[in-house]
């Protein structure tokens, strides 16, 4: 209501321009809020990531409509392009399928959070509503000073804020180095030589190579365990990250029998098609 009132009372020159802006705002605001709520409420982390990507894109649009085209582009490139991809990448490593339980384990956390959150939002809105003037100055003058928004920002970054800018470059390098240090796994002992590896294999009683994943398998090759010569499936043939998260398909003993028969050189009929699907 407040918004409508101010829209009516603003002067004619801005009205035409602000009608389009208002449409953009309301659409993008709705998308942003829905995206944020979606992130908050969806059980799967991947869904959260996709929701927040939507929020960030709509925020980029809002930046553009606020006379900040440079920031809008940066938002898309940095956030939706780089940051969100990094998130998705990590999610893939951690496990796409994992979903949070919605049961709250900390007593009173949910109620207190909602209460405090709503109170905080109310206070913010009340404070902002009491403080800020209705009519904005607008960025036309500021943007045109150096011939455009990008030029204006450039003048500030390389002028008044050049020291902070240099500091951020140091920060980024430090962050890159830090990420590398953190992700790097230090080898605590000497890498065993080929000879030692083969000796180890003989000692373990399995001199031959392990079968590759999917040998004799009829299903998703990477996630299905190989069968040992005696027909038992071995979990060790499955890549480590998939052992826990990927569903291991149980061994079809009928198939095993047939494979064993083949190995003995007996005649075997064609496989039963419906048993494999």
């Amino acid at each position, binding site marked *: 209501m407040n918004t409508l009132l101010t829209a009516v009372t603003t002067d004619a020159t801005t009205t035409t321009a602000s009608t389009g802006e208002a449409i953009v705002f309301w659409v993008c605001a709705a998308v942003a809020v829905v995206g*944020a709520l979606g*992130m*908050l409420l969806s059980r799967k982390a991947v869904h959260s990531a996709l929701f927040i990507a939507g*929020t960030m894109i709509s925020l980029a649009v809002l*930046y553009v409509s606020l006379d900040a085209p440079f920031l809008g582009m940066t938002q898309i490139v940095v956030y939706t392009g780089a940051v969100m991809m990094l998130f998705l990448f990590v999610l893939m490593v951690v496990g796409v399928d994992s979903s949070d339980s919605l049961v709250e384990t900390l007593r009173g956390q949910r109620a207190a959070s909602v209460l405090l959150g709503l109170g905080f939002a109310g206070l913010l809105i009340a404070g902002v509503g009491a403080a800020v003037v209705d009519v904005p100055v607008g960025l036309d003058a500021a943007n045109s000073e150096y011939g455009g928004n990008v030029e204006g920002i450039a003048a500030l970054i390389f002028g008044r804020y050049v020291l902070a800018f240099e500091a951020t470059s140091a920060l980024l390098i430090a962050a890159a180095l830090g990420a590398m240090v953190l992700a790097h796994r230090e080898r605590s002992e000497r890498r065993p030589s080929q000879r030692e590896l083969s000796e180890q294999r003989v000692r373990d009683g399995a001199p031959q190579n392990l079968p590759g994943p999917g040998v004799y398998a009829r299903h998703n090759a990477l996630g299905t365990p190989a069968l040992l010569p005696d027909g038992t499936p071995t979990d060790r043939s499955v890549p480590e990250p998939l052992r826990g998260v990927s569903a291991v398909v149980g061994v079809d003993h009928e198939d095993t029998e047939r494979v064993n028969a083949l190995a003995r050189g007996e005649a075997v009929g064609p496989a039963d098609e419906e048993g494999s699907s």
Partner: protein
Amino acid sequence: MNPMNYLYLSAVLFTIGALGVLLRRNAIVVFMSVELMLNASNLAFVSFADIHGNLDGQVMAFFVMVVAAAEVVVGLAIIMIIFRTRRSASVDEANLLKY
């Protein structure tokens, strides 16, 4: 178009982000919520730039983005390590540092 609406939107998004930090247990989602809060504050900066008619607010938002990018890099690396050692990305399970 009242510039206040942008600020209201910013406040709402910030609160949702805060609730995300408080309610979600998956470290990655918590991290996303933090990003959402940063974005909400960026929106407020940009709105203030528009309201006051100078570009300093936009420059601030730009710096926030840079810092956020650095933070994401390091933070996600930490989450990776925690996951690697504990086989879990739940922030509640990393609770050994207590009384």
